């Protein structure tokens, strides 16, 4: 920890992804879903936009060889578009032109190489919930459905779908605790609880991009004052600097 010091070593900012509460909860959820291998099952992740659902799940999928597919509202008109996109993600080179063939190939690929499937913005394609349920049942693969607040309600309307939901995760907004951890990890700063709450309350204070930008300003101020302790006053100044930057 860097306090007041005569031999001051300037603080450096290095962006780091901190394991916030949402991340930890998500990892736990995936572990539990893995335990139910071979059973058709759903995971459900929901929250308002901008809380990192897509990013967190895409990063996990990229590192674990899972499928991550963004659902498009135009697929509501027909299942073929959705099944072709799923087949492509599963590794199909020549995409079948009929729904039946596409469905059969997707099932074959998921049975021979089981892996979780993330369907992002599923709330935009509610008509395919039953199709996804059947895919999950036939293949035993875990399907994790991601969407906004409306998704749980859409799923609970369909009893067959709802009864197969094993795990539900609500993505919480960034908390002052996450900001304190981020300050420590990224720049060795000791952010006071009040200062973290001040940033969290400010406009955009629940968005990681804004938090990162503000923290870079905080590092500049901390170096000018030769301290690693971030007070409420210093945080207010950094937030103000951020707004001035936006005005320009």
């Amino acid at each position, binding site marked *: 920890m860097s306090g007041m010091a005569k031999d001051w070593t300037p603080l450096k900012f290095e962006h780091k992804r901190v394991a916030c509460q949402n991340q930890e909860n998500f990892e736990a959820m995936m572990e539990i879903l893995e335990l139910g*291998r071979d059973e058709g099952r759903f995971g459900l992740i929901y929250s308002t936009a901008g809380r990192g659902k897509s990013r967190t799940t*895409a990063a996990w999928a*990229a590192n674990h060889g899972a499928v*991550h597919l963004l659902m498009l509202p135009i697929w509501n008109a027909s299942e073929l578009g959705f099944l072709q996109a799923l087949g*492509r993600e599963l590794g199909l080179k020549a995409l079948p032109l009929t729904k039946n063939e596409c469905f059969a190939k997707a099932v074959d690929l998921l049975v*021979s*190489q089981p892996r979780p499937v993330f369907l992002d913005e599923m709330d935009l394609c509610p008509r395919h919930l039953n199709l996804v349920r059947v895919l999950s049942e036939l293949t035993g693969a875990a399907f994790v459905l991601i969407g906004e607040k409306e998704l749980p309600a859409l799923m609970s309307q369909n009893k067959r779908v709802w009864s197969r939901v094993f795990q539900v995760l609500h993505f919480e907004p960034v908390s002052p605790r996450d900001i304190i951890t981020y300050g420590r990890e990224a720049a060795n700063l000791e952010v006071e609880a009040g200062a973290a709450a001040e940033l969290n309350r400010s406009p955009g204070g629940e968005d990681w991009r804004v938090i990162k930008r503000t923290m870079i300003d905080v590092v500049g101020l901390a170096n000018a004052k030769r301290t690693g302790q971030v007070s409420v006053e210093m945080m207010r100044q950094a937030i103000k600097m951020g707004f001035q930057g936006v005005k320009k």
Partner: protein
Amino acid sequence: MKFADQARRMALVLSHNGQRLISRQDLGDRLGIQTRKDMRRVDTAAKALVKSGDLEHAGRGLYRYIGQPPAPSKQEVMWRFLRARRLVTAEDLQDVARATADYVREWLRLLLKQKLVRQEGNNYRLIQDPGPEPPRNESKIAYLKSRREQQKKVLAALDEVYLDAISLAQKAAEARLAVSQMEEE
């Protein structure tokens, strides 16, 4: 990819991620082995996989996959993440793939060169998606291929020199023998 790595990947696929037993014959078939003699390569690979803790014996000619699935390469992780997100920063890729800034920059340069992404300030947008397989560095592959071919040619030329030298040495030895056996007059 080395034969042993191919065998490991194939064993993982055949075992359905460790849920089914794998037969030696199936493994050989999937690895494109056609002769009984070549099956020895499969046996050697299987033996190595048992030793490394990826496979265990489960009866005569049968194995069980008990290893961890092979970790994807950094390029695979970055490519999957880029396809899922469509718009990323170099920092995002560093975070997700745990890669160095230089490595990510070089990979993004390759994608820019192949016109798969477009730079928009600090962001990179995917503008062409050829599919889940990560793009290959064709120029590097061509360079390595030409280097291997050159190496092959040089080795062949050296072999010729070697054979010439042997035949010369043989002739010299014969001449020496002939000289030593010459009767003194």
